[in-house]
């Protein structure tokens, strides 16, 4: 079985997001970059299938030259080879643009299964999986937390809202979008990183985008204004803590004067 994993490089969660001078995008020339977290879960799911079934895992990423970082990372963790779809406008492109770029590469790889994260940490459209499935004519299912591969089909556990789940069976080839938490992620080992240097990264160009087609155009980006009037409490920890407790008792009136006194045992054990 061959599994393609679509990985997006996004600004890291730790990066302090700053809007550019024209208010049209973030200042991503100053950003730090990493693998989109849900895509990391998709990669791990693919590597587990490889461990169990001996599958070939092909990592695919669409974007400028810097996205080879996430492809090298995937190769280091155990992917067999990689495809880099190049195009400078892919990083901030909408879902149709990215899915079109990935669809060409996916067709070239001809996988039985395509895995990707359920959404990206940057624009967060949560669209690429479904659009990619349509463009490649594959079956699809989304927000997946479990995968059982059978003969010519795959049975997947879909997460629904409010703690509900559902099993869905799809014919192969199929596109699955993976929910976080499906597995504990493995790290690239030193041996894996050394081996990754010998693994191939094919480079292909993204298809030209047709004029006048459907798309989402970002007009402006801003740091949101606060919905509520927040009171930020400054000062040294002890001082700030005393003021918070006073405010909760006297201003918000959500604590009684005796609350907290004399209680010492934990009510809940972590990990219980």
């Amino acid at each position, binding site marked *: 079985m061959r599994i393609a994993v679509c990985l997006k490089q996004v600004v890291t*969660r730790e990066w*302090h997001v700053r809007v550019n001078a024209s208010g049209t995008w973030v200042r991503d020339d100053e950003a730090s970059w990493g693998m989109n977290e849900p895509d990391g879960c998709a990669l791990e799911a693919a590597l587990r299938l490889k461990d169990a079934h001996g599958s070939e895992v092909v990592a695919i990423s669409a974007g400028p030259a810097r996205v080879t970082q996430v492809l090298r990372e995937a190769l280091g963790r155990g992917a067999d080879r990689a495809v880099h779809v190049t195009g400078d406008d892919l990083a901030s492109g909408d879902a*149709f643009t990215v*899915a079109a770029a990935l669809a060409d590469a996916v067709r070239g790889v001809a996988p039985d299964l395509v895995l990707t994260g359920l959404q990206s940490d940057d*624009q*967060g*459209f*949560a*669209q*690429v*999986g*479904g*659009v990619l499935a*349509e463009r490649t004519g594959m079956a699809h*299912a*989304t*927000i997946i937390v479990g995968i059982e591969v059978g003969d010519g089909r795959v049975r997947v556990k*879909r*997460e*629904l809202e409010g*703690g*509900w*789940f*559902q*099993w*869905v*069976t*799809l014919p192969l080839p199929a596109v699955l979008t993976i929910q976080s*938490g499906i597995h504990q992620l493995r790290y690239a080992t030193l041996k894996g990183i050394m081996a990754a240097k010998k693994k191939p990264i094919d480079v292909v160009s993204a298809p030209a985008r047709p004029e006048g*087609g*459907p798309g*989402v155009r*970002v*007009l402006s*980006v*801003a*740091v*949101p204004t606060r*919905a*509520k009037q*927040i009171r*930020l409490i400054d000062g040294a*920890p*002890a001082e700030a*803590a*005393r003021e*918070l*407790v006073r*405010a*909760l008792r006297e201003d918000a009136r*959500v*604590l009684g004067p005796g609350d*907290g006194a004399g*209680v010492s*045992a*934990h009510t*809940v054990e*972590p*990990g*219980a």
Partner: protein
Amino acid sequence: MIVLVAEPHAGRASRASLEALAAAQTMRAPITVVLLGDGADAAARDLAAADGVVDVVVLDHERLHAYAADAWIAALAAFLCDTAPSHVVFAHTYQTRDYVPRLAARLDRALVTDCTGVSPIDGGAAATFTRPMFQGKTQATVALDGPAPHLVTIQIGAFRADAVRMASTPAPVRVIAAAVDAADIHQQVEPPFREAKQAVDLTRADRIVAAGRGVGSQDGLTTAAELASALGAELAASRPVCDAGWLPMDRQIGSSGQTVAPRLYVALGVSGAIQHIVGMKGSQTIVAINKDADAPIFEVADYGIVGDLFEIVPAIVAALK
């Protein structure tokens, strides 16, 4: 004309559908409501009485009872080709996340997801939309390009269900045979189930202390547990903490966990991704403690302390004594 695609829930229009209807009403165009799935007939009557709704259509087919993405896509693609609306509005639910992107691709029409605001322009013929980007750290205004219809999903909680305006005369409800071919449906679905019984009902808690990924480790949770104990609060967590196995899944707050509204909610090291916010923003008083001053959790908090929770939380526990 706008099409609103609604989801029935237990024989009524789902709350999320009503919120999406409230969003559609702000676009000041006549609305056709479309329903699919079990209970669609009954839910149709809830929506027919809303102001601006001129037509309610139930798409009926034996393959439109239990949800399967391909059936929903086939039925709606055929219906939308016949009706030619300017916009198609959905609630941003797990179900629409599953089928709407593929529907948009099949129609080759633009889709914007997870919108929190709608601004009609040109007298309602077009609109711009606001939505979060970069984990809620920024808000973007976007326009949709290409021919109509434009597809839009509305974030849960962004509009109020009780803001739906009602009309004096309900719109007619029609049942239409849907164009679904069983051969087009690739998903074989099994009945929904719950994993284990929900052992903890956080919805009844008066006070909650929630730990986010900022607690760093299972050991870090001890700090959160000490505060919960001192406050007589239930201990809860955001998804990453439960994913990591530091707390059981039934203590998760957010769109994939429980939705709570206690009198006091203390968020420790919770960044405030929208999936978490939707589960707790109805809380009466929200306290956020986070080292990242830009964390979106501070947007919904009443009190905030920017700093190291491992210094601040023990100080709060001490101050409570």
